[in-house]
């Protein structure tokens, strides 16, 4: 694999705003991204979901703009835009024709400074988010199971609640909660701006200074003190809902993004379940035992900042007993622990992960995310250039070792879906 590097330039305004820039003049577009180092890990019980709800509020108007006008103006200038909230960060972005960069900088700075938070806007957006929660979680086949998995696996760390928040918190969040969250999290010294694409660095830096330079820094937001203690024994639970099929979702505690152990863990996940030549696919999916059987591991920059969960899940095919399928899956993982896999599988996984990273670089948007999210989560965008080497260095012993260390029964939490009839569902009470 040839050497591929992303050479961001890193600057910082006097108020603490970090800026990453990377010119790429091959296509007449530019991506402008504002990443805030605040997500659901910075919440507390009572205000869960505020990071994401607040993300919505950022589109509801400012001193200059009416509700949703931000989006309308960007689109009317040929741009696309959106935002997303994760456990670790809240990110806003505009992908635009190259000559519209200043517009994005100006509007992003304006809403950061002059957001108009009103009770009316909050009430409307609260309902929008509750509808989103129903879509993504409550009425989706497995959303509530995955929520339960995290709620059981973590009892200290904020990863125990969902990014979208508990419904009872969404109902009670107040305007004051929002104002406080805004003040703490949306400060220039808590953000990383990324500019990537067809622009001139000097001009962009001048514009960013012009629009953001006068903003005042705030006291840094509180560190997240909670650390999950090592799990001492398997945790299990059952979730009943109307469903065609049985399924289970499991999670194993694994380290955060800064830890080099994530590379052998990603290789392990790849060997087990990535592609049609993987072990899980050939053994469970192809043969018709499972509709799906996967190890879910998000490669960096999406891997979580703090120790999170490596998820393993399977949806049983009709007539297949979930207990038996689950046991076979643990047996397949035990084989890795015992070193029963080939060097060729290791090489294939490494090549797959490397190629996948290169494929991501096709879009400037993704390249920008890679730099920005690494800067937010690890304090160092430069880690993006160590990814390929990280994969390259993984040995068979590493894979075996992380399988033994992390994929143990004691470190495991399992939630099993038990299908029930609509009548029984009714008796169990409302879901929200």
């Amino acid at each position, binding site marked *: 694999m040839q050497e591929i590097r992303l050479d961001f330039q890193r600057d910082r305004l006097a108020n603490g705003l970090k800026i990453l820039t990377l010119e790429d003049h091959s296509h007449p577009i530019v991506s402008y991204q504002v990443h805030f180092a605040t997500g659901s890990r910075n919440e507390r019980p009572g205000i869960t979901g505020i990071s994401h709800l607040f993300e919505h509020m950022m589109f509801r108007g400012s001193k200059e703009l009416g509700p949703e006008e931000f989006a309308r103006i960007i689109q009317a200038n*040929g741009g696309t835009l959106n935002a997303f909230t994760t456990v670790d960060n809240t990110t806003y972005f505009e992908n635009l024709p190259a000559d519209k960069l200043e517009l994005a900088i100006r509007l992003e700075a304006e809403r950061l400074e002059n957001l108009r938070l009103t009770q009316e806007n909050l009430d409307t957006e*609260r309902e929008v988010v509750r*509808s989103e929660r129903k*879509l993504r979680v409550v009425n989706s086949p497995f959303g509530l199971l995955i929520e339960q998995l995290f709620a059981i696996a973590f009892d200290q760390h904020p990863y125990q609640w969902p990014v979208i928040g508990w419904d009872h918190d969404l109902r009670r969040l107040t305007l004051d909660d929002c104002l406080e969250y805004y003040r703490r999290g949306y400060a220039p010294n808590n953000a990383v701006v990324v500019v990537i694409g067809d622009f001139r660095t000097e001009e962009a830096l001048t514009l960013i200074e012009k629009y953001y330079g006068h903003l005042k820094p705030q006291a840094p937001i509180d560190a997240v003190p909670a650390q999950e203690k090592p799990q001492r024994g398997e945790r299990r639970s059952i979730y009943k809902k109307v469903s065609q099929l049985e399924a289970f979702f499991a999670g194993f505690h694994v380290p955060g993004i800064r830890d080099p152990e994530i590379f052998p863990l990603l290789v392990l996940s790849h060997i087990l379940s990535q592609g*049609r030549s993987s072990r899980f696919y050939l053994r469970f999916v192809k043969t018709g035992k499972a509709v799906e059987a996967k190890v879910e591991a998000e490669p960096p920059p999406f891997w979580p900042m703090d120790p999170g969960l490596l998820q393993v899940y399977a949806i049983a095919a009709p007539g297949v007993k979930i207990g038996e399928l689950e046991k076979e899956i643990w047996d397949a993982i035990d084989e890795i622990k015992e070193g029963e896999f080939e060097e060729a599988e290791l090489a294939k996984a490494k090549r*797959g992960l490397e190629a*996948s990273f290169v494929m991501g670089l*096709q879009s400037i948007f993704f390249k920008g995310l890679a730099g920005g999210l690494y800067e937010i989560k690890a304090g160092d965008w430069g880690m993006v250039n160590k990814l390929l080497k990280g994969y390259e260095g993984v040995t068979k012993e590493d894979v075996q070792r992380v399988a033994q260390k992390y994929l143990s029964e004691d470190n495991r939490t399992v939630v099993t879906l038990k299908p029930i009839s609509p009548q029984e569902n*009714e008796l169990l009470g409302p879901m929200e």
Partner: protein
Amino acid sequence: MFPLQPKDIKKIRLSNGLTIMGLEYHKLPLAHITLMIKRGAERDPEGKEGLADLTAEMLTLGTEHRDSQRLALEMEKLGARYSASSGWDASFLEALGLSEDFKALTELLGDMLLRPIFAQHEMKQSQQRRISRLIQQRDQAEVIADEMIVQYLLTGTPYAHPTYGTISSLQEMREEDPKSFYLRHYCPKDTVVLAIGDLNFEEVREHIKGLLGEWKSEGASNDPLPTPVRPHGRRIIVVNRPDLTQSQIRLGSLGIERRDDRYIPFKVMNYIFGGGGFSSRLMQRVRAEKGYTYGITSSFKASHIAGPFVISTFTPTANTISVIEEILKLMEEFANGGIKTQELEEAKNYFIGSFPLKLETPGQMAREILELELYDIPFDYLSRYQEAVKGVTLEEINNLARSYLHPEDLIIVVVGRAEDFLEPLRNWGEVELIEYSEVTRVPPPSTPPNTHLPPGGHTVSPSPGGVLE
């Protein structure tokens, strides 16, 4: 690289009729290769819906030289991703990998295309996997709603079924079906190979010619496609799923064909009405003002025939009636009141400005180029696109709105907890109520899968207006 000029897209035709196209892209060491066969799920025989898609997968499940596992392994050890599927009007065999592996990748794709063996055990497994997936999919209310509205809108055409088929049509598949579909529809004169990447076109051409130049197959002639009929009057279908806390709602009619001269104005019209995110009227009213939903959109599918033109949304059960009411009102206002000059200008600026964003990656370029090739639209579409958008007039949009947005002539589908909205819904027209248990019912196979039947011995007639199978 931008704007894409027709001359940048190299194209030649071999003596056996096969078309080779190439576009050089040197930003990254990648190669994106697509084999497009200009026949898709619309060629599924009646009662065997999903056969085109199953056939495409069968190409990846064993050739004369490699079994399915070896094919997967050889692709994936290169770090490549590959897929095979059928959509409307075409089937695709695709791979994305590193450009240094171009020859190996095309050799594998060529092997799949020319020498599939359609092994019985692979066919059985695939059939079973597909049925299981569809059973699982029954838990997704949005999928039921999407399938249902298309089924009602396109009744009587070969586009009324999901491209992946139905549980009962998959049960009806016989061992010989994929092979006979392949022999009937896969032929060089209807096949296009497109390679985009860090490649040299001369080499691409010579290599592909070496692999596929000797392919001989005539393929059967295509039956003409029927013209779908736009709905007259309102028809309301409710799927009762009492465990849902939110309703999935679809309102639809038909749009236009892909080759229609009004394609670009139609896109602009759709953007203003419901396709343009927060810039659209639907989103502005139903989400931003009313807070009824997280998302509402309108979209249209233009193919060889005029496909569905559908408004899609979801809302907590209690808002179901209010949301439909707002949508009908918005249709009325849009069709009768016309649009504002500012809306038109903003929509045009969006399409003009965002055009380069849609042509950034090889995959995006491939999609655009293949769509033009499939519908026989000259490549200068790409270089003239922005001018064409600029030329769209207010009058064109208003005419389209009047012709295509009729609140009185609609299919309406709601999947949700019926008792909470059924009665008021009847005010808008006759309601057909379908119990969820009917939708999820897995019909017993009429004969065990893969047993041979005499020709014509067994077909399942589609059930237009009936229950999803």
